[in-house]
């Protein structure tokens, strides 16, 4: 019986395992050093804030794995021998094992690398002091929990999604939070200015001390090696007992790196050869079938880097949904039905304190020259919708591109239907059509105030058009284009 071994029990590895099981009878082993069972990384914050217990973050009950004949092994993989098709484990409890001591091995026929990410550290002075950490793993959560009683003031460095989550977490435990953001407004490398301002206001409103255009210079420790303050590049010292480093994550490929790798090739992506000759750049390089350059070895999720990403997608996308889609895809290939990784229209979502955010399609921070934008914001300053649409026709993947065809949407404080937006963007519906039918996309709970009329009126005023709402959301929903089977 073929043996598929998966390193990594995160969303990508587990999705692959589940889908392989659905389609095949082969032996499946999932290895992870982090936890015994798959848990939802995205929910770590809720455990810290006391909304749930760790066991609630596990999407499947513990009996699920045995019932579905998915073997779980709790161990850290120390190295891989691609020629022998064998993995070697690190000795248990031996984090500092520099020599080649080995705690057992396992053979595979097919190997899926689903190693995830690790938080970035940029070589700051003091970055390894006690009280300095990122937030990624279960162990990070544990150490944060352990330190919490001693923390009165905390500094968070780096303004991304994990940074806001960490701010919200610390805030919920009544810790003073200073948030150092290198940019001049929150997350403005990803968000257009208005949205970025909206989030910044909301973060400040929650009593987080947001410092923009402020960069970390060094972290200062006391005699016990515990952090006591940080200094910014402009020379300010801020006292703190905890520093959260949330300056992004990088593929977790330490396992595959060899000490002296030379960059090969000048074309993008250039690569180095890692253990056993596997091609690495920032992540593990894979082709569109998620295959690495080594036969029978695949990489998915956060650790994978696409050599030829689909147009307008990045080559590394460290988000939940893409990990899941890669897992679904690689399972097909492994079960004998080679399938290309083809994520559809981009989507994502997040929550900033109390404001929910969803996005579909492309809404870059800076407006491309071929794109127009329509933005509406509610007077409360907490709800907004931005729709980007095509200025002229152009050649783009996945969708029709008539002038005025919608390309993407950002929505804050209004939930919208994934199916509807996916369909609108794919079929290139015009901004006018979309605005007239916006209530169809409304996914807010019943009785919530609706803003479609106000939104449409703003568009009419700006463009001198006289569009009217053509659909309505009543107590009985109509579910359009929904390909539903019961």
């Amino acid at each position, binding site marked *: 019986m073929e043996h598929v071994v998966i390193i990594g029990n995160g969303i990508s590895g587990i999705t692959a395992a589940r889908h392989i099981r659905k389609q095949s009878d082969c032996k499946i082993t999932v290895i992870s050093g982090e936890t015994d069972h798959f848990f939802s990384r995205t929910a770590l914050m809720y455990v810290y804030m*006391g909304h749930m217990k760790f066991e609630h973050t596990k999407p499947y009950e513990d009996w699920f794995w045995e019932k579905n004949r998915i073997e779980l092994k709790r161990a850290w993989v120390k190295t891989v021998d691609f020629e022998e098709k064998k993995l070697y484990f690190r000795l248990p409890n031996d984090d500092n094992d520099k020599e080649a001591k080995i705690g057992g091995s396992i053979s595979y026929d097919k190997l899926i690398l689903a190693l995830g990410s690790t938080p970035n550290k940029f070589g700051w002075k003091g970055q390894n002091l006690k009280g300095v950490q990122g937030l990624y793993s279960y162990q990070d959560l544990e150490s944060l929990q352990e330190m919490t009683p001693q923390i009165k003031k905390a500094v968070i460095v780096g303004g991304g999604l994990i940074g806001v989550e960490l701010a919200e977490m610390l805030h919920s435990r009544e810790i003073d939070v200073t948030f150092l953001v290198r940019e001049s407004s929150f997350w403005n490398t990803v968000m257009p200015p208005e949205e970025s301002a909206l989030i910044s206001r909301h973060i400040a409103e929650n009593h987080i001390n947001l410092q923009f255009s402020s960069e970390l210079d060094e972290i200062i420790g006391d005699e016990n090696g515990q952090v006591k303050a940080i200094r910014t590049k402009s020379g300010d010292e801020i006292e703190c007992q905890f520093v959260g480093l949330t300056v992004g994550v990088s593929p977790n490929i330490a396992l595959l790196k060899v000490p002296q790798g030379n960059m090969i090739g000048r074309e993008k992506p250039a690569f180095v050869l890692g253990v056993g000759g596997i091609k690495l750049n920032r992540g593990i390089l894979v082709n569109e079938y998620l295959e690495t350059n080594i036969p029978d070895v695949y990489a998915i999720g956060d650790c994978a880097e696409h050599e030829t990403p689909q147009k307008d997608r990045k080559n590394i996308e460290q988000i939940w949904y893409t990990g899941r889609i890669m897992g679904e895809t690689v399972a097909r290939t492994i079960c004998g039905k080679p399938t290309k990784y083809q994520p559809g229209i981009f989507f994502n979502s997040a929550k900033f304190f109390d404001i929910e955010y969803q996005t579909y399609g492309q809404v870059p921070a800076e407006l491309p020259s071929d794109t127009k934008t329509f933005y509406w914001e509610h007077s409360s300053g907490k709800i907004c919708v931005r729709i980007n649409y095509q200025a002229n026709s152009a050649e783009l993947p996945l969708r029709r591109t008539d002038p005025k065809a919608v390309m993407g949407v950002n929505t804050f404080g209004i939930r919208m239907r994934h199916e509807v937006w996916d369909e609108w963007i794919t079929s290139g519906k015009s901004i006018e059509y979309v605005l007239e039918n916006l209530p169809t996309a409304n996914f*807010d709970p019943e009785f919530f105030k609706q803003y479609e009329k106000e939104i449409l009126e703003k568009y009419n005023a700006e463009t001198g058009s006289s569009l009217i709402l053509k659909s309505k959301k009543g107590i009985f929903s109509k579910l359009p284009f929904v390909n539903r089977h019961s």
Partner: protein
Amino acid sequence: MLQKLGLFIFLAAFGLFIGTLGMNNYKLTNEILEKNFKEDALLDAKIELASMIDQNYSNSYTFASELSEGINQLNKVYNAQQAWDKKIYEDTILSIVKASANGYLTDNKGLMFLLTFGLAIIGALLFILPEIQKPAGIKNDGIYFNPAMTRKWLGISIGTFLIVFYIALYFKPQYIANWTMLVDPVSKLINGGEASRWFMYGFLYTISVLVMGIRYIIRYRHSKYQIFRTLSIMFFQTCIAFILPEIMSNLNLPSADLKNMWPLDYSFFFNYRIDKLIAGGTFGIFLLIWGIVLFVVGVPVMVYFFGKRWYCSWVCGCGGLAETLGDPFRQLSDKSLKAWKIERYLIHGVLAFAIIMTIGVLYTYFTGSYNLLGFIPTESLKSSYGFLIGSIFSGVVGTGFYPLMGNRVWCRFGCPLAAYLGIIQRFKSKFRITTNGGQCISCGNCSTHCEMGIDVRAYAQKGQDIVRSSCVGCGVCSAVCPRGVLNLENAETGTRVMIAPDVLLGNLMEK
């Protein structure tokens, strides 16, 4: 600060409330016996209780237990004589205790009412209202650090208190006679008479729903669905369940809780109730027909359009208490597959029991025979249902176990009406909880806070709609979802996604 003060006031009032049980002196007199016993039993009582007559008791507990012992003796004799109609029930003992009481509490009912109920309400509100200063949104911070909400010492204490309370209320009301006395002033105001234990219970129940309803509204004030739903519950409990029946009986009409229905209202078809309604003239007949139409026509039609939520989380009293007083405990429901299995056996078992019991009762009513099919004794069916389901399950376990098994123990495992509503919701309804494409991040907030123990995430992460007979449509899963994945909707029945798609939205590989 204000909240601490509120908590302090509440605890002081609660302490006093418990303390009132030890207040008053008790003296049983012949007049009291004469008032409370039918002539044929009076002499027996006077003899049996002779040692108590005109004795002063400084403590309600000794008084009530001696009294109960005496009456137990009497009942034993009557049992032996098969003199069923002479038997003495809890309500008589309770009113004897009440009548025998004298002292500070009896003389200062109004003041004591204010110091217990009044202060408790004020304290609770002081504790609850300041929450409004926090920004609106989901505020679940610290739930799992709170000893009351996580089956720690405080939760277990609250549970124990509630269990003892329900046992006393149903089976030993003589020990809580002083509590009924506290609400006499309210009872006088509303219906002119003294408070029965059920009046006391109804009042306490309504107050709990109202005060904790305010808490719930503040907590979920960003959601109009939650606000409307809670106002509806508060309205139905206060006006329809509590006040309206009192008004009806003031008008000498047969009284009824118009929103309660068979089989939750399991005694609806009991002979004494049917007789009373029929004796009640046109209005009585109307109530009888209303009660039948409600479950025969009302339930299927409403559930078809809106799901069982129209009743369970918008109208029902049990649901109302669960959603308000019980809200802090919603996360304690068991989400395991095993619990779901037990749930299905239990709740449908109770429904079957209720149906058989009612058939038996009606059979006896129409034929006068006490044996259904010749061998099922209808009277013991009726009394065991009343005891096991009506009192123990719905009361003692149903509410007493809030802090141990979550706030919907009764609704989930026991309520026969919920089972009936659920069958229709599962097989013929427009209602479903829609999941939003591929947006779920499997965080588990929805499952954790689902009071019915539904593993909502298991559906959401597969892109399948949640169509479950037990879902009461409280909407909390949708509210707590940080990614906007869940939505309670009514739409064409055929559009419910009952089978998870092979791959979720966002993946273009051929399906």
